[in-house]
């Protein structure tokens, strides 16, 4: 069964522990010009997760809410379907992971993702695409992702996705403060990270216009969205594809390839 994380936004105090945990565990760098927490945090190649500060109104009073953002690990990941090099792969345990050695750098994933998650290492001379990996190596051992394990207020619960959905339902049904919407239950065909909140999601910067159809079904449309890239890069990409494929083949022969 596939694992997921339930994020209860009412419990977050904005300490940013999760963003630091992500950096510690994944060896990401800190950049003062690109903060991972605060008013305008940047999700980028070094910040795989961010916690944004939002001042919103509740019952006519200003209230603060903090929103942790990271890859939602879609059940039917558009990034993976868009990636012809298979650099993005959905594991049976839930994480959608990225294999740099397969990446050709086309960045179709960035265009396909409905949540605008994958980021490019613009400042590297050998850039790769990056994003939250849901600490796949931890998850594979039955451990919670790094960010989940450090949260001092238990904002996040790690577990089986269907159990988390049941828990989310129970929570929002038994407490009328919550909005009756489990974000990620159906968005983009369902995600492994799901959210509950006492403030409507659109007020907290969530994309609520995301289709509930699994995106891969029509990912072709998504690709059509990018004619400029497709036309000017087509030849080069085809070449790279062939190149990567050959590498895969070699890798396979060495019996070291990743599961497909």
């Amino acid at each position: 069964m596939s694992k997921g994380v339930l994020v209860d936004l009412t419990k977050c105090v904005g300490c940013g522990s999760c963003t630091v945990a992500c950096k510690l565990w994944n060896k990401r760098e800190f950049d003062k010009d690109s903060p991972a927490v605060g008013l305008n945090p940047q999700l980028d190649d070094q910040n795989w997760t961010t916690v944004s500060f939002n001042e919103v109104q509740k019952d006519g009073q200003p209230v603060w809410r903090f929103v942790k953002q990271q890859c939602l690990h879609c059940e039917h990941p558009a990034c993976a379907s868009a990636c012809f090099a298979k650099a993005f792969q959905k594991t049976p345990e839930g994480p959608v992971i990225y294999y740099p050695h397969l990446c050709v750098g086309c960045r179709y994933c960035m265009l396909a993702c409905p949540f605008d998650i994958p980021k490019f290492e613009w400042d590297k001379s050998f850039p790769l695409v990056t994003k939250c990996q849901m600490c796949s190596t931890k998850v594979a051992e039955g451990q919670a992702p790094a960010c989940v394990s450090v949260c001092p207020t238990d904002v996040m619960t790690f577990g089986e996705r269907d159990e988390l959905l049941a828990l989310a339902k129970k929570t929002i049904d038994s407490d009328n403060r919550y909005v009756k919407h489990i974000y990620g239950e159906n968005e983009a065909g369902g995600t492994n990270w799901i959210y509950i909140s006492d403030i409507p999601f659109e007020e907290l910067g969530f994309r609520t216009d995301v289709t509930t159809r699994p995106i891969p079904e029509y990912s072709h449309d998504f690709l059509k969205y990018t004619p400029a890239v497709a036309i000017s890069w087509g030849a080069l990409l085809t070449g790279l594809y062939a190149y990567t494929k050959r590498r895969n083949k070699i890798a396979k022969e060495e019996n070291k390839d990743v599961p497909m």
Partner: protein
Amino acid sequence: MDKQKGLNKEMTRRGFLKLFGGLGLVGATATLSGCSKEPMGGEGWMPQQYQVAASNYPTQVRGRIPIDPMSPSIMRDDEKCILCGQCLEVCQNVQTVFGYYELPVVNDTICVNCGQCTLWCPTAAITEKDDTQRVLDAIEDPEKIVIVQTAPATRVGLGEEFGLPAGTWVEGQQVAALKQLGFDKVFDTNFTADLTIMEEGTELINRITGKSDAPLPQFTSCSPGWVKFCEYYYPDLLPNMSSAKSPQQMFGAVLKTYYAKKMNIDPEKIFSVSIMPCTAKKFECQRPEFNSAGKYWNKEEIRDVDAVLTVRELARMIKAKGIDLPNLPEEKYDPVLGEGSGAGLIFGNTGGVMEAAVRTAYFVLTEQDVPDLLFDLKPIRGLDGIKEAALDVPGVGTIKVAVVHGLSNARPILEAVRRGESPYHFIEFMCCPGGCIAGGGQPRTALPPSDEVRAARIATMYGKDASYNREHRLSHENSEVLTLYNDFLEHPISHLAHELLHTTYTDRGNKLKAKKLS
């Protein structure tokens, strides 16, 4: 729309060249470095408590405290944080601030600005908000007269930054160092500690004798962390809080009115600095109501205290200038606001404010000499979390007092007051364990702070007080304070004293929903 933007970004020349230069080599470098068959991530490290093999078990010590990016007191460098959880440990278990409110948060980062987290953080990721540059700029500014006050507890802490044993007395060296740094006048907060006793003591006597209808017990009000704690969690008890300002704020107000007048200085030119063992003082000085001098002169923008430096910040400034503090010849405070009694000095210890108050209150109530016992009030000295004493005051009866330090110790007493079950007339509260001598701005001499260091600092303070002759141990015999009343304020709680030296409090109960205590 977002997508379109992304697309435009991709087609820039820079992006194009970078990509073109990079792409062909991605595979090559990956192969050369021979390491990227693994998924990305997970090559890092986490503290031991998160390394649980079979995993989802919650660990006890984890995460960290939230910090308001606009906090005037503390800040954190995320890059240094290792998520050890120590800041949360002290905030929650020693200070009972974090975790004592319901979630979700309302619209505040609940913090009393005490800075204990700066003392516990092993990597010094959390520090005081640095104000040294502002002070240096003021010193450089020929238009400004920069005047500094030093809190009682600073003189037993500063030396530790220079390798001296815990509690070494460096009062004279501190004055000398401040002069070398270029401060125009060096004054002593002990002076206004004595002044506080005159005001707060009179207030207490008025409550006890029924001259004032303010409730008993009276709470001390000089620890701004404690004051904010009461405003958050026990706003219903704010009438019990003494209206007397803290010595730091009294000093600022007196400096820019009485002193400015007396010396014929334009108060707008004075830049008032204080050296404090405390980070909450940085918060206190910028509370909107603390511009009494501004109101006095009808120039609202004049602040009573312009900048607060912790002992650690002062040490950094001294070190940066290459001043060899331990070997400086001792110097004396400047006159007019520079005299302080032993009673004012021991304000820095837990129990000190109470002992100082009791000495003066006894004299005022009985008009008799203060008995020896009150110069060594053992029951309220030392590091027990809650201490109490009962004193027989001839003609008045038995006065019961309590002394509390560390906010976790304050809660049971406050709950008792709330229930109307407190037997006390007067309660001293100090936010930090040990009092100001172990305030959040003191040197990080032991990590986390140890009672050994606290005890050494406390012993030096009491030792100094005991070494003075009798008159020099009583607030009401501070000759400069008496001159201040004669020349300017007239008498304690006079109209002017009220304007300059007293304050009101802010109910912050709506900033949080306090958890019910079981």
